[in-house]
């Protein structure tokens, strides 16, 4: 049973560029959440996707956008990259039941983004 997978593992981009990160949820899960973990900090919630729509959003600017595909996989796009966007980007999957996602979210290994 494959867990949550993310690609790429590492990425180096230049300020002002755009980046796309990818995530495949755990088998049987239909909801994908994205988190940003800066160095020395805990993960911060960016947004959550369910049924191909953004279901909930954290306190992140519109430069951060996403997409969910019919097979439940998801992409995170960040435009106009800033140095402060350098972080580990984590994807987590869960399953919606009764309008709420399952309590435990399962995380992928993350994508390390470095902006120079």
């Amino acid at each position, binding site marked *: 049973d494959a867990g*949550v997978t993310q690609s790429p593992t590492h990425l180096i981009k230049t300020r002002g560029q755009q980046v796309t990160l990818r995530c495949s949820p755990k088998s049987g899960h239909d*909801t994908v*959440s994205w*988190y940003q973990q800066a160095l*020395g*900090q*805990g*993960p*911060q*919630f960016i*947004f*959550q996707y369910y049924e191909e729509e953004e*279901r*909930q959003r*954290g306190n992140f600017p519109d430069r951060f956008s996403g997409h969910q595909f019919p097979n439940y996989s998801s992409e995170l796009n960040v435009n106009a990259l800033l140095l402060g966007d350098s972080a580990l980007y*984590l994807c*987590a999957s*869960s399953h919606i039941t009764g*309008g*709420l*996602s399952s*309590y*435990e*979210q*399962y*995380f*992928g*290994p*993350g994508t390390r983004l470095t902006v120079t």
Partner: protein
Amino acid sequence: DQQVKQNSPSLSVQEGRISILNCDYTNSMFDYFLWYKKYPAEGPTFLISISSIKDKNEDGRFTVFLNKSAKHLSLHIVPSQPGDSAVYFCAARATGGGADGLTFGKGTHLIIQP
């Protein structure tokens, strides 16, 4: 404004002893709490959770205690083993508004000494 706080960046415990990791929160809307464990180069792994209607949940060597009046929870690991060395994150969720995003603390690096 940090809604979930883990005030100890690191904790060193001898193998076989009890490890106690603490977490405080400020948002009264939080009604579900989770602990995650993270090894380097891996994503966080779910460890144990507790609903706000309970004050204790136990799973093997791991026990989580919740004190709602103090807005405080703790994770007890007994006995501590070398494989427990990792960063532990406390996370909280407010489900009342249909919100599922987790709010994390900054983590505590637990080091188990042989």
